[in-house]
């Protein structure tokens, strides 16, 4: 097992319930701890897996503060209840303001980050170079490819400076080549800061598990209405985290089978 320690709790979900005319989510309890890995600025990558229509998007919205649960709460840093704007959110289709150029969109986000005050433009240029988008700063979202939009969305949230970035189905609709690039990009982000935490909500089990350190499985239990966290899998303990080409390993495939059975 890779040398690491789990320190303070950075996100806590307590007894979250969500009901409309019927229960959608119930008894959602989990926490994310700061992982310390000697020699690395290792952030956290957590995946929430569940079948389509199980309530992943609702949980995603609750975690991001965009939706209030019926009861329970999500807290971050020093027990502060999460509110919209605390977390960076990357929507499934990488939504960007269509009336803003890439540069304008990034500037809007950078201006919300107090630590970048006065250095917004330099930060954008720096990040654009890192994300290979320097030549695209004056384009509108409609002129970008899916992969470029994804990178701009990630850049926007990075510039906003939130420690948490929530990603809704980041791999859906990407071709094989783009998928590899997206994975590489997310790993790069997770290594950019010790407290950087990516929470991926996905039904693409293989890809999301391959880049995660922890997996939470959202599913229904027999005789109980509403989805809950059925299982937590610590991939570091199983020596499946932070390894390239892990998808080819037999134990990885066994874990995938285990997850599938649980769904």
């Amino acid at each position, binding site marked *: 097992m890779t040398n690491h320690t789990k320190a303070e709790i950075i996100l806590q979900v307590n007894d979250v319930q969500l009901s409309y005319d019927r229960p959608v989510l119930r008894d959602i309890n989990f926490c994310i701890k700061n992982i310390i890995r000697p020699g690395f600025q290792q952030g956290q990558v957590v995946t929430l897996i569940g079948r389509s229509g199980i309530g992943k998007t609702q949980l995603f919205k609750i975690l991001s503060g965009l939706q209030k649960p019926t009861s329970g709460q999500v807290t971050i840093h020093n027990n502060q209840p999460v509110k919209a704007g605390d977390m960076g959110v990357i929507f499934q289709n990488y*939504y960007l303001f269509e009336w803003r150029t890439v540069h304008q969109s990034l500037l809007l986000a950078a201006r919300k980050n107090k630590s970048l005050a006065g250095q917004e433009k330099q930060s954008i240029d720096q990040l654009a170079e890192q994300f290979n988008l320097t030549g695209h700063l004056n384009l509108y979202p409609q002129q970008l490819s899916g992969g470029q939009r994804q990178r701009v969305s990630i850049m926007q949230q990075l510039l*906003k400076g939130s420690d948490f970035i929530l990603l809704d189905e980041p791999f859906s609709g990407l071709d094989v080549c783009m998928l590899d690039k997206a994975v590489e990009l997310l790993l790069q982000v997770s290594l950019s800061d010790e407290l950087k935490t990516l929470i991926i909500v996905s039904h693409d089990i293989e890809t999301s598990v391959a880049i995660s350190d922890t997996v939470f499985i959202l599913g229904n239990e027999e005789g109980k209405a509403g989805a809950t966290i059925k299982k937590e899998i610590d991939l570091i303990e199983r020596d499946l985290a932070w390894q390239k080409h892990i998808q080819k390993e037999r134990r990885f495939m066994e874990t995938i089978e285990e997850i599938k059975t649980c769904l």
Partner: protein
Amino acid sequence: MLLWHTLSDGLIPKPGKVAEAFVHLLGTKLLLDNVLVSLLLTLKAMLFSILITLVFAYLSVIPFFKSLAQFIVKCRYLTLTGLIFIFTLLTKDGSQLKLSLLVFGIVPFFVTSFLSVIVTINPQEYDLCKTLGYNNWQTLYEVIIIGKADQVFEILRQNFAISWLMITMVEGLSMSEGGIGTLLIKYNKYNDLTNVLALQLVIFVIGLCFDYLLGALRHWLFPYSKLKTAKAS
């Protein structure tokens, strides 16, 4: 055209005759003066209408103004003819009467179009604002004011036709200042059908020119609108 030419008898002028009158009309100062009067009045009415529309549309996110905006939408079915006397009492002179009637006639159509734009806003636009830490006013500014500016322009373009249609009717009420409506009524009065049709052609061509001009101006001011149109087609 062929059908028109064939079916024209003594009462309906032949296309060639109308074309001749059209060319003649284009060269007269009479037409230029009257077109300028009408255009000025239309543009003035459009400006007031868009300002009133924007106030009601932006405020329609507040429940009280929402119902007020919805009432304005229903006012599309009110006919101006029955209200002329009331407007005459409320206004000082013919110029104000025409302007207020035009604004009253245009605003419900503008509000209808703009509310439909607001209703169809993608919820992700609001969500993105929230995730970027915007408050409600910043969200309103970014999503509705800045984000929909190109669509306001498009509404302006689409509804120019309504204003242009109403101008001839309104100008017939107060003829002292002239205008194409007044000119049209004069030609009608003397059964000068050739000039009536020639003037209709002028009104039609000016309408088309404005439609094109506003469309081009929209693409120039908001380059992304061109991309949206291209994507949609």
